[in-house]
């Protein structure tokens, strides 16, 4: 019986549940010093002077560094498509460009003393006008980087056809702000560094990509990669924001080298809220045109992406938005233009979905507005435009090739599970009775891209002479459950129980190569690599057994239950894994390594239906139901897959309803801690109703697509549509996200002509 597809409990859990995980800040290094960063309190200012004298004299202080001390020079943006004059110094040199930017570093013998001394660093600033929103940035009146001559970091404009909407009976236009949110992994960033007397760096980092950090450190410190070892032990969440190498981490290594002692750093949550990259931040001009019978003929999206103060991954994400621009719909004409700008805010990075939620939110929301305009049920408008299941592989107008899907079935499953006609009837009743609490039904049918830019991933399987197995993977789990999932893949092939299979990750000395965990790539990249390595080990063992049994390898079979190889029909004479591994020891071991690159991305899809109750007197929204159909191909472990969906749904709901990173007009963050930022809690969510659907992809041998981000991508517009749907009969056309009570209340009052406040 196959172990695949079963709800196998996690191997990781007993440790987490009894003594807790081992996170970077749990690892003490003998004789380590602690660093506290002094961060800019201005969004945009020239630094006139920095007085570190008092701090240097404070108890326990070993060193205080400013830009003048750091000999690593300003770094241009890592991606070549960005304006290369938008350079970043590890510590701000003459100008600070966002609140939270590191200006100085204080190193002391204890963390408390480093923090105390950091308070004593005096910085004299000359404030400059702050550029807080993207439209202001585009006007180039205040430049963040005068040498760049513009605030435009990346231009992806393809032009505009004046006759684009010709032939459309109905055209709906709207501006949406897909607002900025904070990724908020529960574990904030942490790093520590130690150098060997021979000049080799060992760095612990809370990251999704230890090999990426290794390259980042080697590049920044001008080291050979062999001189760097990166360990990411347990990592308390990432959600895309822990993919890159942050200045704080590079400086930790630099300071440890300069001081000749280990250095540790962990940020506070309040630092993390401004220092860790933010997600989203896309201003969208959306236009949709079609016929009165519900056929969509043209769709246009023009976006301005907020890159924050220094262009990073966030600024390039409109590329992903464009890749799935028209979503699940067969639309003859599409148009897309984007410009990414810098502003005096925290840099934007990848956050769960990364460019795809923005695409889905735009089309799913405007499609509902189009449906309202022509007076047709939004489910029916969707149905009339969905790409049909016999159309795959389907090439979109932007040139993306969707692998496989059955969008109509996903929609039908969601509608059936929710009993859509009954919901509409209940809604009608509430509307007719004029109830204070109105019902909204929101739909979203989505497709997304996982393993978007396929790159190689490493997987190795080794059977040890004691009959146990070690799997080494280049993926870097931080909650996803790879230790269990990869063990299941290997167990399936070798017949060895998962209890005897150890999965090793997050140590660049033990795992020679790797890319990491992001973009919902792990199973279809790293999982396939491990699977292929397991296949190779079985073949090698079969060959070895054949030699020992003096048989033809083609006649030797693996008895998975007995965990031994024998000639078909003669089970009495055989060789166990243990025996074969012992035999292979002198020949390099019973081991196989695979570097696997997928031939292309995969495209999970689904349909979400949300029922919301909106109090028309207070504007308060309560989510009553979330029905989620998410198809990520063949499922390896339904329990793990469901967990990924649940977390994704919660984060999607959070963006629609609650969470928003906000700045005042001077660029001061007003949501810079967890008291002010509306992090979603258990109290705001219902239990989820997940409907299973599996359409295996032909792209890889496991039939698997990624499941990490789908929940987020589908749920935000479903919630948003539900809130707006509850009010459409009152004349409310749209409520901007997040749909806070104040915004909802205001929209109702504006629509009904009552005085607005």
């Amino acid at each position, binding site marked *: 019986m196959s172990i695949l597809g079963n709800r196998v409990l*996690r191997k990781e859990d007993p440790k987490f549940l*009894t003594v*807790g995980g081992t996170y970077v800040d749990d690892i003490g290094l003998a004789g380590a010093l602690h660093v506290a960063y002094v961060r800019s309190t201005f969004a945009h200012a020239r630094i006139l002077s920095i007085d570190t004298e008092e701090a240097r004299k404070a108890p326990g202080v070993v060193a205080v560094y400013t830009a003048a001390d750091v000999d690593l020079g300003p770094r241009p943006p890592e991606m070549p498509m960005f304006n290369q004059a938008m350079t970043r110094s590890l510590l701000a040199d003459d100008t600070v460009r966002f609140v939270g930017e590191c200006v100085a570093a204080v190193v002391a013998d204890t963390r408390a003393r480093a923090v105390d001394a950091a308070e004593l660093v005096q910085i004299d600033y000359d404030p400059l006008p702050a550029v807080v929103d993207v439209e202001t940035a585009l006007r180039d009146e205040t430049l963040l980087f005068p040498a760049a001559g513009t605030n435009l970091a990346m231009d992806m404009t393809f032009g505009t056809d004046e006759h684009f909407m010709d032939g459309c009976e109905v055209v709906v236009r709207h501006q949406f702000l897909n607002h900025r949110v904070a990724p*908020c992994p529960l574990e904030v960033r942490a790093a520590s560094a130690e150098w060997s007397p021979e000049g080799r760096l060992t760095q612990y980092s809370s990251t999704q990509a230890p090999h990426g950090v290794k390259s980042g450190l080697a590049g920044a410190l001008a080291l050979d990669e062999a001189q760097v070892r990166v360990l990411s032990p347990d990592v308390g*969440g990432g959600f895309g924001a822990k993919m890159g190498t942050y200045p704080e981490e590079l400086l930790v290594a630099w300071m440890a080298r300069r001081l000749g002692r280990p250095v540790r750093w962990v940020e506070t*949550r309040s630092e993390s809220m401004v220092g860790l990259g933010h997600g989203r931040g896309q201003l969208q001009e959306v236009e949709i045109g079609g016929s009165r019978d519900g056929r969509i003929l043209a769709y246009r999206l023009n976006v301005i992406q907020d890159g924050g103060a220094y262009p990073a991954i966030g600024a390039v994400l409109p590329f992903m938005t464009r890749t799935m621009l028209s979503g699940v719909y067969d639309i003859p004409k599409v148009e897309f233009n984007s410009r990414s700008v810098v502003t005096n805010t925290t840099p934007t990075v990848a956050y769960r979905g990364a460019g795809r939620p923005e695409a889905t939110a735009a089309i799913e929301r405007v499609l509902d507005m189009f449906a309202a305009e022509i007076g047709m049920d939004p489910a029916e408008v969707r149905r009339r435009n969905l790409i049909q299941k016999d159309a795959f592989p389907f090439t979109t107008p932007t040139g993306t090739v969707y692998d496989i899907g059955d969008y109509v079935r996903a929609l039908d499953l969601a509608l059936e599970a929710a009993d859509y006609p009954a919901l509409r009837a209940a809604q009608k009743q509430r509307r007719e009775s004029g109830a204070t609490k109105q019902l909204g039904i929101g739909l979203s049918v989505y497709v997304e891209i996982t393993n978007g830019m396929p790159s190689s991933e490493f997987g190795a399987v080794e059977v040890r002479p004691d009959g146990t197995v070690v799997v080494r993977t280049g993926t870097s789990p931080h909650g996803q459950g790879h230790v269990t999932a990869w063990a299941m893949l290997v167990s399936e092939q070798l017949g060895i129980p998962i209890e005897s299979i150890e999965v090793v990750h997050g140590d660049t000395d033990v795992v020679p190569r790797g890319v990491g965990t992001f973009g919902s790539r792990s199973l279809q990249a790293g999982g396939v690599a491990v699977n292929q390595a397991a296949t190779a080990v079985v073949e090698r063992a079969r060959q070895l057994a054949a030699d020992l049994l003096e048989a033809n390898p083609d006649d030797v079979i693996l008895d998975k239950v007995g965990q031994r190889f024998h000639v078909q029909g003669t089970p009495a004479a055989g060789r166990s894994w243990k025996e074969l591994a012992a035999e292979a020891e002198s020949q390099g071991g019973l081991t196989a390594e695979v570097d696997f690159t997928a031939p292309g991305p995969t495209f999970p899809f689904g349909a979400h239906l949300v029922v919301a109750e909106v109090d028309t007197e207070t504007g308060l929204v309560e989510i009553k139901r979330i029905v989620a159909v998410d198809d990520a191909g063949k499922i390896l472990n339904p329990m793990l897959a469901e967990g990924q969906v649940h977390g994704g749904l*919660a984060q999607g709901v959070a963006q629609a309803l609650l969470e928003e990173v906000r700045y005042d007009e001077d660029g001061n963050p007003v949501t810079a801690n967890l008291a002010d930022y509306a992090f979603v809690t*258990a*109290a705001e969510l219902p239990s989820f109703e997940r409907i299973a659907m599996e359409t295996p992809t032909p792209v890889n041998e496991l039939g698997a697509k990624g499941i990490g981000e789908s929940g987020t991508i589908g749920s935000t517009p479903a919630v948003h549509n539900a809130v707006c749907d509850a009010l459409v009969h009152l004349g409310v056309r749209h409520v901007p996200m997040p749909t806070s009570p104040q915004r909802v209340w205001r929209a109702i009052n504006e629509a009904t002509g009552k005085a607005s406040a």
Partner: protein
Amino acid sequence: MKVSIEVNGKKEEHDVEDRTLLVFFLRETLGLTGTNIGCDTTNCGACTVIMNGESVKSCTVLAAQADGQKVLTIEGLGTSQDDMHPMQEAFRQNHALQCGYCTPGMVMAAVSLVHDNPNITEAEVREGLEGNLCRCTGYHNIVKAVLAAAGSGGGDL
């Protein structure tokens, strides 16, 4: 100052700075790193421990305030796979954890919640855990686990 705190059944006497928070006493003085820190505003609950039978956020209690008290951390609940507390077991069975960071605090808060209200409802679990943040699970399986444990010794102290 000198504090004497009974932690997981063991008396711990140490000299600490007056301002030492209980969470730092646990993590740094005693090396009990199961209790995590996730914020600096008492919102996230990652540092939740049980003091004299009540759940507290150990980032908001001074070690001095815990002097003479009994503190229970995740390390003092079940200590191995074969010896898990019913709440720990329910978390495992229901996949109520992913990255594990909020987990120790979440488990301690859940034990305390069920201890106080063995016949707890879903709505009460959700309200009761509002002060414990999780970014991975969407709370769905946590709520399921707490409800499952409520009927089977999940509140035992």
